[in-house]
């Protein structure tokens, strides 16, 4: 990257950081502050979900997690940028700016909750609402060196969330410490009649049980950057020193997770995005004297970004007559099979442990050379728990040349408090780093 580009990125980073600091400086000290990913609706803020098609859409209501944090005394200080509708691993697929990694501004924050990762990393005491469909909380938490909790599917209401994949979306939290996440997770969790998927959940326990036995699937240790492998192995050694039993196991069915996830996610997304047609939300097509097919097609074609179009096409194709059984129904069967495989592991171990991402935060120039399939493959460690709706948490576990590496713990449905208990114990043994940012 040239010196002038780096210098211009630095100016942009300083400008954004100054905006953060000025906002936080003017807050009521008696209240806590939080941000929300841009696909969560909040009164007084645009909800654009990273898309040009939602430009100007200001919802007249708060999403349930936002309402609950406000009722608990929280101040919503802003919306955080993201990949368009959550379609990405590096937060570069946004119509509204790309977040810069606070550890190295030439690198990605991860995605799709990249802005949430940066906010959680930069602002002490801050809690960021993120949303995960296939790894969009774990990935940014890993690259930005913070704690990221993706709860069980259905634990937190999705009312007011702009859907990507209905059977996969989960609202969660990113912050500098497990204690911050724990405090606010209790606030946003719980049944909400406005989202029936949240109404089958058991009560959140007061305290979790620290997992004393972890399983590492050997299949998750392939295709790792050597630095990530080394950092992860050191973390495993540290866990063993803490008295945690760690055992390698085999989980060959993990190879089906990535295709099954992308087929379900894009199938659901392609129907969810049908509502964006220039009439009801955001960008409005004013020329009404045209056939509705041309009207809808025109506004969608110019407003959706490249990756959104790719995923709409993929999802539409997979749902078409003749392919539905091969792709969509098969993927549902794979999800069920993986849930059963996880359950079998949880009979002997309390959690599954893997690295979070297979490499450290990549540079933007490296991302620009990646093919779509390479980008999809980058999620191979975060997809299995997301596909199966299992709660998972990403924790910083090592640093390479000053950049964070993450480890991810997955537990059975509804066992989030066990993960948070483990995270608290881990923080007693491993010190997190936070980048020094100068104005």
């Amino acid at each position, binding site marked *: 990257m040239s010196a002038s580009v780096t210098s211009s990125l630095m100016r942009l980073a300083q400008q954004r950081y100054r905006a953060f600091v000025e906002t936080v400086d003017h807050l009521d000290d008696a209240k806590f502050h939080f941000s929300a990913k841009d696909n969560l609706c909040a009164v007084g803020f645009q909800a654009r979900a990273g898309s040009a098609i939602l430009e100007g859409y200001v919802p007249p209501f708060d999403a349930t997690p936002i309402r609950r944090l406000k009722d608990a005394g929280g101040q919503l200080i802003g919306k955080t940028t993201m990949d368009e509708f959550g379609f990405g691993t590096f937060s570069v697929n946004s119509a509204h700016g790309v977040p810069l990694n606070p550890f190295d501004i030439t690198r990605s924050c991860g995605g799709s909750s990249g802005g949430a990762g940066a906010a959680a990393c930069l602002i002490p005491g801050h809690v960021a609402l993120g949303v995960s469909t296939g790894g969009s909380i774990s990935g940014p938490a890993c690259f930005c060196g913070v704690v990221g909790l993706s709860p069980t599917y259905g634990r937190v209401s999705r009312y007011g969330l702009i859907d990507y994949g209905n059977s996969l979306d989960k609202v969660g939290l990113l912050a500098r410490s497990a204690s911050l996440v724990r405090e606010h997770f209790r606030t946003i969790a719980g049944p909400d009649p406005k989202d029936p998927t949240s109404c089958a959940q058991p009560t959140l326990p007061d305290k979790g049980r620290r997992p004393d036995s972890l399983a590492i699937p050997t299949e998750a240790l392939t295709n790792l950057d050597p630095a990530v492998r080394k950092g992860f192995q050191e973390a495993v050694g540290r866990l063993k020193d803490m008295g945690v039993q760690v055992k390698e196991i085999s989980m060959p069915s993990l190879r089906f997770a990535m295709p099954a996830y992308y087929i379900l996610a894009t199938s659901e997304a392609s129907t969810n995005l049908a509502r964006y047609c220039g009439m009801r939300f955001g960008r409005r097509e004013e020329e*009404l004297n045209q056939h509705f097919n041309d009207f809808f097609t025109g506004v969608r074609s110019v407003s959706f970004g490249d990756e959104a179009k790719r995923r*709409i096409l993929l999802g539409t194709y997979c749902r078409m007559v003749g392919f539905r059984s091969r792709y969509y129904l098969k993927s549902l069967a794979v999800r069920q099979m993986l849930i059963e495989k996880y359950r079998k592991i949880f009979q002997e171990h309390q959690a599954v442990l893997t690295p979070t991402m297979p490499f450290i935060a990549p540079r933007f120039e490296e991302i620009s050379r990646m093919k779509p399939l390479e980008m999809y493959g980058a999620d191979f460690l975060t997809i299995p728990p997301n596909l199966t709706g299992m709660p998972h948490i990403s924790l910083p576990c090592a640093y390479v040349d000053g950049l964070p590496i993450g480890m991810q713990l997955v537990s059975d449905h509804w066992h989030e408090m066990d993960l948070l208990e483990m995270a608290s114990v881990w923080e007693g043994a491993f010190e997190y780093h936070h980048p020094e940012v100068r104005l």
Partner: protein
Amino acid sequence: MDREIIARVARVARLELTEEELERYAKDLDDILDNFSVLDEAPMTDSYTFNPIPVVDVLREDEPGQDLDPQVLRGQMSTYEDYVRGPRLS
């Protein structure tokens, strides 16, 4: 995957693609679906659900209620008097 199939999928999805996009997405979907063919090796079962957790029906008392004022929702749309305006149907 040939361009005709991608063009048909795009029409269904209400997307108009340029020649360059048709070419590129056809290649991308070919690569992606070729990679996804590993799914053919996964066992099929009839015991699946559409959500990863059990979902219960939620009913409320049959009493009129209004969370949001429809007038506010209409504020985002093009309207004429009290009607929403849209494109021609034919």
